[in-house]
C-alpha cells in the first residue's frame, strides 16, 4: 500500500490513522514491536530536518530498521537516473520507501517502478500528506473537533505542498477553509478548490479558529510575485498586533521551518496558543500510526 496523496485515503482510513496515533504518542509506553523484520528507506532528494527525523523516530518506535540514503540535488545531475536509484535501493531489501523530491509527481513514478510501499514525504509543490495528517491530529487534539472549524491558511499557496494536502484533508474532515494570499501567490483556477479566498488578512483573523501560516520564500521576491518581503509582512505577516485580533480560543500553526519576522513574528510563534512545537511532536506519533497501518 502507498500513501501518495491525501486523496488516496478514504475517510475511514484517515480517521483510523488519527485514532491510532494516540497509541504512539510519547509516554504511552512501548508499542509492540511487530515490525522488527521490516526495513524503511528514507530517500530525500531535497533538504529536510523535521520530516526526515520524524519518520526515523516513528520507524524506530516500531522497531523497524531504517536506512538513510543521501541523495542531495537532482538525480539527473548525479548521472544516475531516479529510476535506477530507487530500483537499486529496493534491491537491497526494502519494505517501504519514504521519499521527498523537488519535482511534483515523482513519488507516483517511483510507485510505478517498484513493488515496495511508497510514502510521499513531499513532492514539489504538490502534496505532503503526512504533514496534513499530523496537522489534523494536532487540530483535533487542541480543539476537540475539526468539523465546522474555520481554518485560515495564509501565504504562498501556489508553491505549497502543505497547503494542497491540508486543503484536501481538512475539507474532507468537514472544516471550512479560507485561503489568504495575494493573487500572485494563488494557484490558477482557485475556484476549483473547496476553499474560500480572501486578500484581506485583517478581515479574516477575527473569524479564525485555526490560523496556519506558510513559509514565505525569498525567491518569490526575485520573481516579482511580491515587491518585497517587507511589503509582504505588512499585508500578510502574523504580527503581534494581528495575533491580538484572533478569537480567544484560536490556535496558531506553522509547518516549519519558519522565517521569523517574515510570515510570523518570533513573539507570536512563542505564544501559548501556538501549536508549532506540538505539531513536530505529533508528527512522530502520526507517522508511526501510518507506518503501522501501511505495513
Amino acid at each position: 500500500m502507498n500513501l501518495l496523496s491525501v486523496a488516496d485515503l478514504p475517510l475511514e482510513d484517515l480517521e483510523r490513522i488519527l485514532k491510532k496515533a494516540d497509541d504512539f504518542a510519547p509516554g504511552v509506553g512501548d508499542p509492540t514491536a511487530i515490525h522488527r523484520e521490516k526495513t524503511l528507506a528514507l530517500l530525500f532528494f531535497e533538504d529536510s530536518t523535521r520530516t526526515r527525523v520524524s519518520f526515523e523516530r516513528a520507524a524506530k518506535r516500531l522497531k523497524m530498521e531504517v536506512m538513510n540514503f543521501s541523495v542531495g540535488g537532482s538525480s539527473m545531475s548525479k548521472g544516475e537516473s531516479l529510476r535506477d536509484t530507487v530500483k537499486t535501493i529496493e534491491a537491497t531489501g526494502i519494505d517501504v520507501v519514504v521519499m521527498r523530491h523537488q519535482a511534483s509527481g515523482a513519488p507516483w513514478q517511483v510507485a510505478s517502478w517498484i513493488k515496495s510501499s511508497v510514502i510521499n514525504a513531499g513532492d514539489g509543490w504538490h502534496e505532503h500528506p503526512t504533514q496534513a495528517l499530523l496537522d489534523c491530529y494536532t487540530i483535533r487534539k487542541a480543539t476537540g473537533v475539526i468539523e465546522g472549524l474555520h481554518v485560515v491558511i495564509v501565504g504562498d499557496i501556489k508553491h505549497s505542498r502543505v497547503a494542497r494536502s491540508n486543503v484536501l484533508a481538512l475539507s474532507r474532515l468537514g472544516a471550512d477553509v479560507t485561503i489568504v494570499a495575494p493573487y500572485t501567490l494563488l494557484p490558477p483556477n482557485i475556484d476549483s478548490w473547496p476553499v474560500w479566498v480572501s486578500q484581506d488578512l485583517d478581515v479574516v483573523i477575527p473569524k479564525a479558529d485555526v490560523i496556519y501560516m506558510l513559509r514565505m520564500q525569498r525567491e518569490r521576491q526575485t520573481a516579482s510575485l511580491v515587491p518585497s518581503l517587507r511589503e509582504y509582512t505588512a499585508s500578510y505577516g502574523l504580527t503581534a498586533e494581528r495575533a491580538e485580533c484572533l478569537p480567544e480560543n484560536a490556535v496558531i500553526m506553522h509547518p516549519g521551518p519558519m522565517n521569523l519576522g517574515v510570515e510570523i513574528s518570533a513573539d507570536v510563534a512563542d505564544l501559548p496558543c501556538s501549536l508549532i512545537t506540538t505539531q513536530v511532536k505529533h508528527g512522530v506519533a502520526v507517522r508511526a500510526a501510518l507506518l503501522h497501518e501501511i505495513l
Partner: protein
Amino acid sequence: MVHAQAAKRAPRDLLIKGGTIVDSLGVRRGDIAVGRDGRIVAVGVNLEGQADVLDASDCFVAPGLVDLHCHLRQPGDDEAESVETGSRAAALGGFTAVVAMPNTEPPVDNAAMVHEVRALARNALCDIFPAGAITVGRRGERLAPIGEMAEAGVRLFTDDGRGVQDGGLLRNALEYASSFQAVIAEHCEEESLSAGGHMNEGEWSSRLGLEGMPSEAEEIMVARDIALLRLALRRCDAKLHLMHLSTRRAIAYVRSAKAEGLEITAEVTPHHFTLTDAEVASFDPVYKTNPPLRSRMDVVAVRAGLADGTVDAIATDHAPHPRERKEVPFAEAAFGVIGLQTALPLALTELPMPVENIIASLSWKAADIARIPLTHGGPLEVGFPANLCVFDPSARWVVQAQAFASRSKNSPYIGRELRGRVRHTLLWGEPVVVDGEAQR
C-alpha cells in the same frame, strides 16, 4: 528533394487494384498503374496488364501524406532518432514527404547544414525537405542566411521549439523571406509567460502543483504574428504559417484573420485534437508536450477549426525522445511525443470529417504550405509522381510499442485501439511499405 535515387528503386511496373481513389479532384473508384519511371501511367477502372499487383480492395488510394512538422533529430541526437528510422516510421504512417525541423545540433541555419541533412536523407524511405532556421542558432537575435538556404532549396523557415520573441525581427523575416517565395512558420509562444512551465495552466496544473503555461502565451504570439503579417503584406507577398495551434482563441484569431482576407495558414497536431491536460494527473511524462495538452474546450475548438477549414493541415510534431529523457520526473522530462505512425489512424478514428477532408489536411494542403505541390499531394493523374498512400479506413488495430519504427517509443497512444491502417506506401513508384511492412 531527394528522389533521383528513389526512382532507380522502382524497377517494375505496378498495378494498384481495387481501391477507391481520394485526391484533390474528389473520390472515385479506380486502379492506378505505375511505370518504371516512378510516375502514374494509367488511371481507370479494371486496369489489366503485365505488372505486379498491389491489392487495394477495401482501401482508399491517396496521394502520399506530407508532414509539415517532424523532428528527425539528426545531426546531433542519433539516440532519439535518425533520418533513416524516422523516414521508415513516416513511410509506415503513409507519409511520402516530411519537413524536417531545423532544431538539430548544430541547427540547420545555413546552406551547408541543409546539404548535410540532404546527405543523411539519401537512403530515406520518404522525401525529406529540410526546413531552415529563421535566426542564427535559433537564438532569435539576427536573421540566418535565408537567401543562401532558399538557394539550396529550402522553402520553409522556422525557429521551431521557440518562437521569434522579437517582433521587429519577425517582421523582417516575413518581408525578407517573401523575396524567395518562402514561408515563415512560427512556433507561437511568448516565453515571458510560459518559461518554467511544464503543462497547461488551469485547474489541473493548480491541483498537481506543476508550473503552468497559459493559453495566452500562445494567443499573444498568434495575435502579434497576424498583426506583423498585415504589416508585411503592405509591401510584399509575405507568407505566414502558424504551427501546432492548441488553444480556442488561437484558432479564433486565425479564423478572423482569414475572414479579413489575410493569407495565413495553420496546422494542428493529432495530440491536440485527442488528449487533454487531465492526462497529466498520471504524472506520466509521455503527456508532456509543447504546446501543452489543453482543456476539453480547446480540443473541441481545434476540431472545429479543422472542420471549417480555419486549420489547413494536420502535422505530427513527431518529437522522439529516448527513455532517459522521459522516465524521469515530469518537471525534468523533455517535451514531445512521436506521431508519424498514428497521425492518419487518429484522424480517421477521432475526427467526424469526410475522408477527403482528412486527407486534404494531411496531404495536398500540407504540400501547398511546404511549397512542394508538384511532387507530393497529387492529383492522382497520369504523369504525376507515384507518391501514394493506400490505407484501409476501417481496419482496427491496437497500438504497440514494438511496432514503432522510430528509435524512440514516446507515444501516448500505446494500448489504444485505432481505426484505419496504412497498407501500402509508394515513393516515386517504389513500394516502400507493402501490406503494412516496411520493405527496407
